C-alpha cells in the first residue's frame, strides 16, 4: 500500500508539474502551426508570471492577477508579431530578444516596485487560485484504490489545472473543426495559397500569436499564483524550451502534446521523488544526476526516438508576395 501511495503522489505531482509545460506547449502549437517560430515562450511565461503576481498582490485579487498576466503576455506576443510578421524580421532573433527583455525587466521592475530583491510580495490565499475539492472527495478518500485516485489525482487542483487539460480537446477542435483552424494550418504550410484565396496572411498570423499570448499568460500565472505564492526571478527555469521540445516530440498535435508534457512532468516528479533515496542495484545517485535526468532524456528522445517530425513547411519564413 505504501508503494501505491507513493505512485499516487508521484502522479499527482506529475499533473502539477506538467501544467505549465502543457499550456506553453499548446501556446507554441498555435504560433508554429501558423508558421511563426516562437522561441520566446519562455520570456512570455516569465512576464506573465511577474505581471500576474504583481497585480494580484497590489489589487488583492487572483482574477485581476490572471487578467494582467494574459494582457502583458499578449502584448509581448504582439511585439514578436510586429517584428516578424509586419517587418519580416528573423523569428529566432525576435524570440531571443523577448526572452532577454523578460528576464531583465522582471527583475528591475520587481526591485523598483517591491524592494524584495526581485521577488513580489508573498500572496495571500485570496490572491491565489485555490485547490477545488470535488464533491464527495472527502467521503470516499479512504476507499481503497478508487478513493485516493479520485481525491488526490482528479480532485484537489486549481482551476488553472483543469483549464489546461480542457484546452487539449478544445485546441484539437479549433484546429480541425473550425474555419480559423483550417486557415491557420494552411498559413503555416503555404501562405501564398491563403493569400490567393483572398485571406490576409498577416492578420491570420497575428490572431494565432494572440492565442499564444493568452496561453503563455495563463502558464505564467499558474507558476507564480498557484505553484508558488509569488514571483521569483527566473522562475520559468527553461520550461519554455522544454515545451518547445515537447511540441516537436508531439509533432505539433494537441493530444500528443498532452502526453509529451505529462511525460516530461513525470520525469521531473520522479526526479524529485527519488532524490536522496538509493536506487536498486545502482545504489545512491547524486542529486544533480536526478535533476539532470529530464533534460538528458529530452536530448535522447529528440535525437532519435520520435521518428521524423515534419514541422509546418512555412515555419520561420516571413511571407513576401513574390514577383
Amino acid at each position, binding site marked *: 500500500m505504501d508503494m501505491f501511495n507513493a505512485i499516487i503522489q508521484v502522479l499527482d505531482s506529475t499533473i502539477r508539474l506538467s501544467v505549465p509545460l502543457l499550456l506553453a506547449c499548446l501556446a507554441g502549437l498555435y504560433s508554429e502551426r501558423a508558421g511563426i517560430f516562437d522561441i520566446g515562450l519562455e520570456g512570455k511565461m516569465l512576464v506573465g508570471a511577474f505581471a500576474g503576481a504583481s497585480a494580484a498582490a497590489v489589487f488583492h485579487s487572483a482574477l485581476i492577477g490572471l487578467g494582467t498576466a494574459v494582457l502583458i503576455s499578449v502584448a509581448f506576443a504582439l511585439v514578436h508579431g510586429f517584428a516578424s510578421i509586419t517587418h519580416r524580421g528573423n523569428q529566432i532573433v525576435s524570440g531571443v530578444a523577448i526572452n532577454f527583455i523578460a528576464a531583465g525587466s522582471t527583475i528591475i521592475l520587481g526591485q523598483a516596485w517591491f524592494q524584495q530583491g526581485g521577488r513580489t510580495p508573498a500572496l495571500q490565499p485570496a490572491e491565489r487560485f485555490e485547490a477545488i475539492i470535488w464533491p464527495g472527495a472527502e467521503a470516499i478518500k479512504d476507499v481503497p484504490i478508487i478513493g485516493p485516485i479520485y481525491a488526490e489525482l482528479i480532485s484537489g487542483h486549481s482551476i488553472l489545472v483543469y483549464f489546461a487539460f480542457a484546452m487539449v480537446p478544445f485546441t484539437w477542435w479549433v484546429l480541425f473543426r473550425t474555419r480559423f483552424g483550417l486557415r491557420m494550418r494552411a498559413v503555416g*504550410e503555404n501562405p501564398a*495559397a491563403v*493569400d*490567393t484565396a483572398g485571406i490576409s496572411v498577416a492578420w491570420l498570423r497575428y490572431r494565432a500569436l494572440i492565442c499564444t499570448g493568452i496561453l503563455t499568460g495563463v502558464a505564467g500565472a499558474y507558476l507564480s499564483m498557484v505553484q508558488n505564492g509569488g514571483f521569483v526571478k527566473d522562475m520559468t527555469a527553461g520550461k519554455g524550451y522544454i515545451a518547445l521540445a515537447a511540441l516537436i516530440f508531439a509533432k505539433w498535435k494537441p493530444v500528443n502534446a498532452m502526453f509529451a508534457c505529462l511525460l516530461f512532468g513525470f520525469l521531473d516528479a520522479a526526479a524529485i521523488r527519488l532524490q536522496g533515496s538509493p536506487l536498486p542495484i545502482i545504489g545512491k545517485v547524486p542529486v544533480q544526476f536526478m535533476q539532470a535526468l529530464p533534460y538528458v532524456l529530452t536530448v535522447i528522445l529528440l535525437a532519435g526516438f520520435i521518428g521524423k517530425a515534419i514541422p509546418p513547411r512555412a515555419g520561420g519564413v516571413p511571407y513576401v508576395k513574390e514577383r
Partner: protein
Amino acid sequence: MAQAAIELIGINKSFGAVRANRDINLEVARGTIHGIVGENGAGKSTLMSILYGFYQADSGEIHVGGKPVSINTSNDAIALGIGMVHQHFMLVDNFTVLENIILGAENDVLLKSSIAKARSELDRLEREYGLEVDPDAVIEELPVGLQQRVEILKALYRGAEILILDEPTGVLTPAEADHLFRILKQLKEQGKTIVLITHKLREIMAITDTVSVMRQGTMVATRMTKETTVGELAELMVGRRVLLRVEKGQSEAGAVKLSVKNLTVKDSRGVTMVDNVSFDVRGGEIVGIAGVAGNGQSELLEAISGIRHAVSGEVMLDGKPIDLTGKADPGELRDRGLAHVPEDRHHVGLVLAFEENENSILGYHDDERYLKGPFLDVDAIMADAKDKIEKYDIRPGNPRLKTANFSGGNQQKIVLAREMEQDPGVLIVGQPTRGVDVGAIEFIHKRLIAMRDQGKAVLVVSVELDEIRSLSDRILVMFAGRVVGERGPDATEGELGLLMAGVEHQEAAE
C-alpha cells in the same frame, strides 16, 4: 463578336525602374479561349496578376462584363467571377482536396457544413465537366495533372466565369496536357471564358480562338488564331524573324574524342536505366540524343560526366578512361577538357543565391587566372564576367546581380558561357534550351554550332525533337535505356517519333 468578358484599357505597371506593362489594351470575348503569348519576362504574368488583384496597376481601367470595376485584392477578383490557376499551384500540400477547395470559401465559422456543401458541389462539377478527383485524397499524393485539376475546381467552386491559366502545361506530360485541353474546350462550351498564358506556340494554335502577343511589356498584336501561323507569332514575339531551323554547314568530323562502350547504369532502386549503350563522338560533330524524358538520357549524361556510378562499361575521353565509380573528381575531368552543362541548372548548374560573376567562374575558381595568391582576384573575375556578358548577350548586364534575378534563358547563358569559354575539347549539354525563350534558343543553338565548327565534340541530350533535328549531325534515339536507332539530320519527325515510342524496337525484338 460576342460581348467582352474582360476589357483592359491603358494598363501600366512598373516595378522600380522596370516597366512590366505599358499601355496595355486587351479585350477578351465571352465564351472564348484567348491566348496570350510572349517571351519570358514580356509581362504576361504581371498583367494577369493585376487582373486577379495580386498586384494593383499604376494606371488604367479594368472592365468586367461591360462595367468598370476596381480590383484591389484577390477577393475582389473572386467576387467578380475571375479565377486563376497559377503556374506554381497555390495548394496546401498536406491538406485533402476538400480542405483545399473550401479554404477561403467557407460557409461559416465551423467547417462541417462547408465540407458537406463542397462534397456535393464537387460531385456536380465532376458530372458536368468530367473533372474527376477523389475529394479525400491528400494533395501531395496526387500526380501533378490532378493537382492542377484541383486548382481548376477551386476556381469553379468559387463561381468563376473567367478562368486564367498561367503556363498550365509547363509541368504536365503530353498526355496530361491533352487531357487539360479537352477540359478547357468543355468549359468553353459551357460558356466559360478562358485566358491561357503560355510561351508554347503549338498550344496556342491547337486550342485558342484568338491570340494576343506581348513583347517587352507592350501588347504588340491580337490575331484570330485560324488566320495566323506559328511563324508569324514567333516573329511578333521576338520582333524579328526567328530561325526555327538554324543554318549550318556540313560537319567535318575528325578524330574520336569521346567514346562510350557497353555502358550500363542502374538507379538507386537497382532498375537498369542505361542498358549496354555504345557510341562515339568525334571532334567537329554534334551528336544528339533524342528520346521521351525518363528513358535513361539523364543517367547516361550523369555517368559520362562522372557524377553517377556505372555498373559496367567504359567511357574514354581522348583515349583515356574516365572513373565510372561515381566518385570522379569533376575538377580533374574539367582539366582534361570535358565541360558539362547539366540538365538542371537550378540545382546542379548554378548557385542561385550567388552573384552572376561568382557563378560565371564556379568550378573553375581554382584556376590561377582567377587567383591572387590564396585569394580570389576580384578584379580579374569581374573583368572575366563582363567579357562573358558581352559575348553571350546576358541580360541584364550586371555581374553583381543575384543569379536568381536573371530569367531562365539568361541563367542558361551564364552556365553555357562558363563552360564554353574554358575551351573544352568535349562539351556535354543536357536540355540546352529548357525553359528558355525563343530569342535565346536561337542564340544558344548558334553557339553550339560554332563550337562544332571549331572542331569540338558536342553531345546534346534534349527532349525537344525540333532542337535535336536542327542541331545534330547524327541522331541517336534512346528508348527504355537502349539506343534503339541512329539517323542522320534529315530524319523525319515521324520516323524519329516511332523510334522514340519504341515501336520499331518492339517489332525487332519479336
